């Protein structure tokens, strides 16, 4: 991996002052947290322009997390669908999803800032496991907040976090899912800003998180860009597609192709589609599109994929949607479960329910105007399905 100094402006480069992406973004946090956010922004800015930091991060990505991840042509599915479908294999990254990219960056940064503890929220548990992992590696403590309902759905990930030495704290307020875990993590951060870094798991939250997390995830898109170029005569795919929960794997992927002619498609869960069904609002520290009722109360999301069960979305996606640089679509739980099966049977890859959203869209769109025959598609497979197997099995035998 080469150390590239990102240009300061342009699509998917540095946000405008205050962390603004058009009218979205910002830093809507209690005054108590403003200094911590400012300190973090400063530290990130400093680290990100420090070649030594980048080299160190690259080293951990390579020798520890297994990057670069493979780019796998979906040979059989491509033939069946009349496409060229290329899979960016984040499922092969250590801990089983793209979440490790972000977490290694933040943990290194936290260490650089002298913090001794990571606080994190988690939905599916992928980000929690990744955080617990990085904490173990760097000798930091980790406290992970997880909705009680998600803890039941993803019991094995809870155990994995504990095995890694993290403390997992059940969150019993609100809908007892990711949004409530995020509230609780932020509350706890307020009380522990001195020694703790809030290791947020997606491109949401107050500035600098949406920008910083996207930059840490940019490696997906940059690697894919190079790998796709070697694979396709056109150099760039017609379509780049990724699932969107908070939007970090999509943002990291899109970042590698923002300056190309590739169409960027984000796929949301039908039951958690902030970009499709949301309205502007402020939650978890930034202004974005949010699922909310007419009074402004945040709605509960509902998805078979715990990692997409989130009523908000990263502010940069709201802006990419507004500016029409990216298009956002939804798929249903049924399509998603079917997509897991189809990919398993055709390519021998059991992907995460989250990632299967992107696959489901390709399955539906292939051969239509949305995705004509002969298209070339880069799809980010954000994670592996091991964590979901128990859930799928229960659903399938039920």
């Amino acid at each position, binding site marked *: 991996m080469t150390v590239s100094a990102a240009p300061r402006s342009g699509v998917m480069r540095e946000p405008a002052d205050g962390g603004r992406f058009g009218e979205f973004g*910002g830093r809507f*946090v209690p*005054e108590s947290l403003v200094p911590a956010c400012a300190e973090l922004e400063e530290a990130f800015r400093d680290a990100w322009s420090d070649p030594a930091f980048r080299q160190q991060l690259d080293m951990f990505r390579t020798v520890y997390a297994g990057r670069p991840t493979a780019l796998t042509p979906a040979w059989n599915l491509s033939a069946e669908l009349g496409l060229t479908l290329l899979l960016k294999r984040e499922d092969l990254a250590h801990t089983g999803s793209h979440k490790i990219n972000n977490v290694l960056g933040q943990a290194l940064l936290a260490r650089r800032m002298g913090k001794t503890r990571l606080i994190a929220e988690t939905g599916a548990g992928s980000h929690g496991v990744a955080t617990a992992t990085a904490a173990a590696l760097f000798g930091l403590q980790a406290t992970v907040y997880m909705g009680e309902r998600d803890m039941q759905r993803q019991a094995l990930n809870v155990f994995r976090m504990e095995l890694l030495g993290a403390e997992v704290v059940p969150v019993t307020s609100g809908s007892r899912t990711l949004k409530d875990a995020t509230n609780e993590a932020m509350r706890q951060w307020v009380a522990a800003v001195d020694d703790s870094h809030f290791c947020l798991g997606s491109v949401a939250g107050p500035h600098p998180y949406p920008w910083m997390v996207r930059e840490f995830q940019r490696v997906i898109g940059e690697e894919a860009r190079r790998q796709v170029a070697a694979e396709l005569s056109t150099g760039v795919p017609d379509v780049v597609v990724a699932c969107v929960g908070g939007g970090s794997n999509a943002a990291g992927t899109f970042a590698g192709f923002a300056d190309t002619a590739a169409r960027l498609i984000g796929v949301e869960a039908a039951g958690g589609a902030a970009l499709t069904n949301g309205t502007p609002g402020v939650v978890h520290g930034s202004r974005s599109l949010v699922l909310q009722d007419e009074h402004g109360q945040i709605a509960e999301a509902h998805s078979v994929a715990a990692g997409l069960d989130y009523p908000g979305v990263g502010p940069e996606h709201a802006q990419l949607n507004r500016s029409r640089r990216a298009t956002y679509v939804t798929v249903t739980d049924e399509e998603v479960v079917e997509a897991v099966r189809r990919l398993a049977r055709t390519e021998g890859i059991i992907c995460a329910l989250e990632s299967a959203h992107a696959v489901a869209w390709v399955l539906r769109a292939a051969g239509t105007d949305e995705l004509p025959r002969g298209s070339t598609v880069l799809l980010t497979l954000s994670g592996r399905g091991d964590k979901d197997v128990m859930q799928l099995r229960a659903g399938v035998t039920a």
Partner: protein
Amino acid sequence: MTLRLATDRPLLIPYVTGGLTPDWTGYLLAYQDAGADAIEVGLPFSDPMLDGTTIQQASDRALQRGATPGAILDDLAAMRDRLHVPIIVMTYANLALKLGVARFAAVGVTGLIVPDLPLEESAPLEAETEAAGIDLILLAAPSTPDDRLAEICRRSRGFVYAVSVMGVTGERTTLAPAAFSLARRLKDELQARLPVLIGFGVSTPEQAAAGGRAGDGVVVASALMRRVLDGANPSDVRLDVVALRAALDGGESAAQPYAEISGDRR
């Protein structure tokens, strides 16, 4: 009609979650009757990021009862003739921005607190509230650096809300030392032109008295809401506010600013 506060005694601003009980406006009258200088009314939000368990529970209960921001404001409008003390609405940015300032002004609200709207984000609302004659009260925290603190003093209206602790709302066994140093910085070093009210965790009359001495008064929320959640009716809670009032006014020994209360009720 902006916030007008007494200047001759430590200020007492008790809090109530709007819509928490069917007769919730009864608490407003009780507070007024017990000597509140102003009343803070919370509009319950689904995702109260800066609130501890007690206010979270109060918000959840109100929402479960079907409370909506609009209905709460309507209740306030209906009380307008019977309330002489200023009403300050506290709610999160998403609700505040959605409702719009005109709506607050229309029901006679004279102050607004939005805890997740720091300086970087508050300018538009400052302008709107100013135009509507509402005071947008800004919060200062123990972690706020000096230059920012000065800016907060400059831009806040009505009073400066000094958050006593790095943490969320909720009762605590002692008033945090940070409250005293923050109040000192605001009053002594910055010579704040506005009253400095200490809030978050003021739980007992002793703590209120200590807060009143360090700053210009206190906001009391969780301690009262805990009582209401436990079943206290307006006249019960009135007595609590009377005790707070008395302590603030020096009617009671306040020799022990770090007084213990039984159990940590966070």
